[in-house]
């Protein structure tokens, strides 16, 4: 939206400047045109610049989480738990799916080794969206598309391997794509998908596979 406003101002500013240059008795309009053009350029670039800055600053936290997973020696694989089981929407990185999560724990032990309880982009999205419909497709549309504006459309198809969620027109910021957190939690939108699915289904969910192609993202969850 601010980008659209910015582009409109750039066009308006250019038109006013041209009018000021071409129409001799309206030359002072050039000052207004240049001011509108400058404002338009800054408004167009500002959101992307701020977003890049915030993502970069937040990258420190994801680097620490990656180091933590690596130090714990756990394979990067997360299970998304709903708030009904864990008290809040979380992901547990563990060798195998844990049966239950001790309330308030940040780490705990399973039969096969340590497990890390992590807050995820998906968990935060669920907190932002609050009330979710009971149907997964509707919940994803309501939260990821209408509320958060992370993609243009979403479709959900059941398959023998799990549930395939396909997004089109994805515009999600790249939070941690080069870090170990990516294979553990999935991309930001895959994490949001898994967390919402866990909330809607009321059971743990794992991301089996995800594939991005241009502005299209396919996530297989189970």
């Amino acid at each position, binding site marked *: 939206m601010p980008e659209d406003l910015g582009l409109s101002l750039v066009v308006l500013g250019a038109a006013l400047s041209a009018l000021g240059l071409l129409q001799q008795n309206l030359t002072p309009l050039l*000052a207004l045109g240049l001011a509108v053009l400058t404002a338009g350029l800054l408004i167009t670039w500002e959101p992307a610049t701020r977003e890049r800055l915030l993502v970069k600053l937040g990258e420190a936290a994801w680097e620490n989480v990656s180091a933590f997973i690596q130090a714990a020696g756990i394979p990067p694989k997360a299970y998304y738990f709903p708030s009904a089981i864990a008290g809040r929407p979380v992901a547990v990185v563990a060798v195998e799916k844990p049966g239950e999560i001790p309330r308030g724990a940040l780490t705990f032990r399973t039969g096969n080794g340590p497990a890390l309880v992590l807050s995820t982009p998906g968990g935060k999205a669920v907190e932002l969206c609050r009330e979710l419909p009971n149907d997964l497709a509707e919940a994803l549309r309501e939260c990821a598309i209408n509320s958060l504006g992370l993609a243009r459309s979403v479709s959900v198809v059941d398959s023998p391997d799990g549930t395939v969620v396909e997004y089109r027109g994805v515009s999600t910021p790249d939070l941690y794509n080069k870090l170990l957190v990516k294979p553990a939690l999935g991309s930001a939108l895959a994490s949001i998908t898994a967390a919402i699915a866990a909330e809607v289904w009321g059971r743990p969910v794992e991301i089996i596979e995800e594939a991005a192609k241009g502005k299209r993202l396919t996530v297989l969850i189970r």
Partner: protein
Amino acid sequence: MKLPLVALVVVSGASAAYLIYLGVKSLDIVVSLYTYIHWVMAYFLHPLPKPLSRIYTAIGIALLAAFSYFLALRILPLL
């Protein structure tokens, strides 16, 4: 950032309206005045993130170049 940008547009608009009222048709006066407004507003707009700051400074430098050109055109006949 919003308030200084609105101020930039409002001050420029008011100046343009006043210059039109005075019947000013000279490009060098308009460019010089806007260059002055642009650089005064730079003080209120800062701090800007680096790419935005570069855009604003680049526009300012272009305006200063135009201002210098018009200034040179005025001074040369006197020399």
